[in-house]
């Protein structure tokens, strides 16, 4: 079980050994997964582990260490290692911990942990995975194969303590169901997937629903072709829109801002997107995956409006990037168990609009509905955007045929300005979320 005392002791030991400040993180977790394939159990995994990490300051020099050895000898070795590393680092005038007035934790039950994920035994969990796959396999005769389905459950905890008097901990749980069917028609073979993820078993979608959605997404890809190279409107479904929202996060997080490595650097208060774009980061929404009582520096989570109807209002910062920029932390520190904190997000999402996605599709004469993006062609520094895509071609407001082996390209600057509509279908399937998005025009490369 979570041990707040061990974290506090480790901080004290570091101070005794010569650190002027210290912060300690303890993380533990238990994972379970049952994977089935073609109606048979394929993999079963069940295990747990713990890890402790320490970051120390000696004046303005910083060192960090971590270990899976939580014995007192292991902890002592970690403390000495962190101190030795601080000694070889360089004075960093901005290195510090958050001011003690900024530390704290939000009150109330955030519903991050639910005991019900332990309610079912291994046999029942395997059964849930088998039912999910079965729902996919029996949905359509063209589903002839499967990469499997799985049920997984996780429970864990996190403790944080620092030398400015903060000590806090919280527990988390999650469980998920997923399926990856394979469909065949002539020479065309395609796979896709679907999943449900929740902090509590009772919030999980049913095996039948997950399997059916996976099957539908897979079958509709069969017989995909390339389209001619052209400029056309592009609709991102909520899955692919999520990755676009993830790109916006990378462009507003403090590290890329202070390094001038973002196309949104220096744009606070300016119009950077169409008025259909409002982007929020909220670490306080109960039961969601980006929620926590405090960030990884002990600063309370909060809600930050990042883009308000197209105008850039705030960056997302930890205490270091805030000091670099002469601003205040937004409670967005994130790290594993050690090292200098980076910047992470809470629940980072684009606010939903008015239009149902079906209506957005009906409004397109000729265009692309994107359901999958692959590759790494996004440059946050310049905003250049080019990714491999697959999806459905829209003719006269209806899906005409599937497309693949194409790329879509533009710049993020232009794409944000060109968001003509955000759908009414916002759902949280993780800590980043977006409704369906319609972009006025992108370059589609095909034949």
């Amino acid at each position, binding site marked *: 079980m979570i041990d707040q005392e061990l974290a506090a002791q480790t901080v004290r030991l570091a101070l005794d050994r010569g650190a002027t400040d210290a912060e300690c993180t303890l993380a533990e977790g238990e994972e379970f997964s049952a994977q089935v*394939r073609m109606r048979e159990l*394929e*993999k*079963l*995994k069940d*295990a747990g*582990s713990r*890890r402790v*990490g320490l970051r120390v300051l000696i004046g303005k020099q*910083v*060192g*960090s*260490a*971590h*270990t*899976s050895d939580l014995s007192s000898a*292991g902890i002592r070795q970690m403390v000495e290692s962190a101190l*030795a590393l601080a000694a*070889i*680092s*360089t*004075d960093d005038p901005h*290195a510090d911990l958050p001011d003690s007035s900024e530390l704290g934790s939000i009150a109330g039950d955030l519903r991050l942990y639910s005991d019900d994920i332990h309610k079912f035994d*291994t046999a029942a969990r395997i059964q849930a995975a088998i039912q999910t796959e079965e729902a996919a396999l029996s949905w359509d005769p063209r589903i002839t*194969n499967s*990469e499997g389905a799985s049920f997984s459950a996780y429970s864990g905890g996190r403790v944080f303590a620092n030398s400015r008097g903060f000590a806090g901990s919280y527990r988390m749980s999650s469980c998920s169901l997923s399926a990856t069917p*394979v469909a065949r028609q002539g020479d065309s*073979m*395609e*796979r896709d997937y679907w999943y449900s993820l929740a902090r509590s078993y009772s919030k999980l979608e049913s095996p039948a629903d997950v399997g059916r959605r996976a099957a539908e997404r897979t079958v509709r890809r069969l017989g995909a072709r390339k389209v001619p*190279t052209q400029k056309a409107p592009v609709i991102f479904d909520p899955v692919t829109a999520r990755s676009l929202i993830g790109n916006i996060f990378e462009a507003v997080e403090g590290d890329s801002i202070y*390094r*001038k*490595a973002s196309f949104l650097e220096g744009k606070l208060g300016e119009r950077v997107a169409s008025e259909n774009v409002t982007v929020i980061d909220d670490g306080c929404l109960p039961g969601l995956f980006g929620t926590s009582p405090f960030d990884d520096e002990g600063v309370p989570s909060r809600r930050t409006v990042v883009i308000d109807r197209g105008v850039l209002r705030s960056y997302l910062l930890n205490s270091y990037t805030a000091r670099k920029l002469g601003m205040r932390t937004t409670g967005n520190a994130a790290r594993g168990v*050690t*090292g200098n904190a980076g910047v992470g997000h809470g629940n980072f999402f684009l606010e939903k609009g008015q239009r149902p996605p079906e209506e957005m599709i009906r409004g397109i004469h000729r265009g692309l509905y994107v359901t*999958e993006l*692959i*590759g*790494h*062609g996004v*440059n946050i*520094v*310049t905003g*250049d955007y*080019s*990714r*491999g895509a*697959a999806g459905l071609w829209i003719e006269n407001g209806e899906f005409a045929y599937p497309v*693949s*082996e*194409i*790329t879509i*390209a*533009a*710049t993020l600057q232009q794409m944000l300005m060109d968001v003509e509509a955000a759908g009414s279908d916002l759902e949280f399937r993780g800590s980043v979320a977006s409704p369906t998005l319609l972009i006025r025009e992108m*370059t589609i*490369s*095909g*034949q």
Partner: protein
Amino acid sequence: MPLSDSFFGHKFGITEHDLESYLSEALGAGGDYADLYFEYLATSSLSIDESIVKSAVQGVSLGVGVRVISGERTGYAYSDDLSPEKIRKAARVAACIASGPSKVDKTGFEEVRRRDLYPVVTAPNEASLAERVELVKRADRAARAADPRVFQVQASYLDSLRQVLVATSDGVLSTDRQPLARLGVAVLARVGNGVPQRGYSGGGGRVALDFFEMEKTPEHFAREAVRQAIVQLDAAPAPAGEMTVVLGPGWPGVLLHEAVGHGLEADFNRKKVSAFSDRIGQQVASPLCTVVDDGTIRNRRGSLNVDDEGAPTQENVLIEKGVLRGYLYDKLSSRLLGSRTTGSGRRESYQHIPMPRMTNTFMLAGDSDPEEIIRSTPRGLYCANFGGGQVDITSGNFVFSASESYLIEDGHITRAVRGAMLTGNGPEALKHVSMVGHDLKLDEGIGICGKEGQSVPVGVGIPTIKIERMTVGGTT
């Protein structure tokens, strides 16, 4: 080497008797096979940013993974505590996968014949911190000195030393000591207040620290990162549409990794979900193409003495003169497909189940003069460097993004373009290879391959090649 002299024997007092008893426990409920993977991993990372050594981290991770295979089923559990009670508990959890009498007759261990592909006396991880921090400081100074348009430099150095012990119920006992080091430099350059452009270069391998002195210096990586950023300053937007593509030698071999490598991993083919399933013996590339995966090249990042199931790595011919010859097997897929392991069973850590993975994947050199390849191209794209790539192994469609590319016009490389993305289909793309250069080059040692949530270090390589048509995803 007797087990008592090995890392785990010496440091944790693990004996052959212990290993046999853990394996018996793992097979207590039946099963065809069991193995134990002990891992001790020490890591360091040092980085400089704004000429300040801001981050210095060291870590230690220790644990054991226990696997039981019964038919097509795998049970897996791990422990970060090496006490006998905890290992036995993990073994019993992994055993839950099986039922019935065990089909294994234990007959003791045979130690895997030892070789040393990375004879590194002092691993980088064991060198002094001062020596290692000097590498990032030198990279920072060199990058800043290289060009006044450079305004941000980040250099990072990472190393690890992994000690592994694998013991299996089919009698394999193997130990290995796997050093790994990598230095990388990222820069931003701009003219006045113009749009910044980035450049990146890095490399390393299973080497001693003097690699960064004798072979690839911090200054080498710094200058290369700066050169790439400066090239981008004058680059035009990439073209869009189908065209001839010439790949430069070295890192562009990532094309092979994406276009064919993943699709040839035996787990996908056993399940018949790969675009390459059931195609052994078929023409899947032009006759100019021979592609191998070789885990035995000395000091390379993707090389291993033994894979993570204790099997020696080897050179595996994947495509010979355009004909598909073989897949990459781990133990499970080789058992189920009646083949032999190709030494391709790899895992990220003791917390992960092994699966077939690549090591160093490259195309053998051809006969063409690289300059002639460019001269023979009336119009096309020359890709000198790439970022990452990704493949959908079922449809075979892949993409990869060019980080440094140029237009070819009338047989000459003319202007730089940025943001080019290439896309194609695995079993089709290499059929359009019309020329292969004599200049095979392996990458400098920075590759990380991700599959099903597990990352492992890999290498790639390729000579200059010409692909008659491929889709380029730009904006103009």
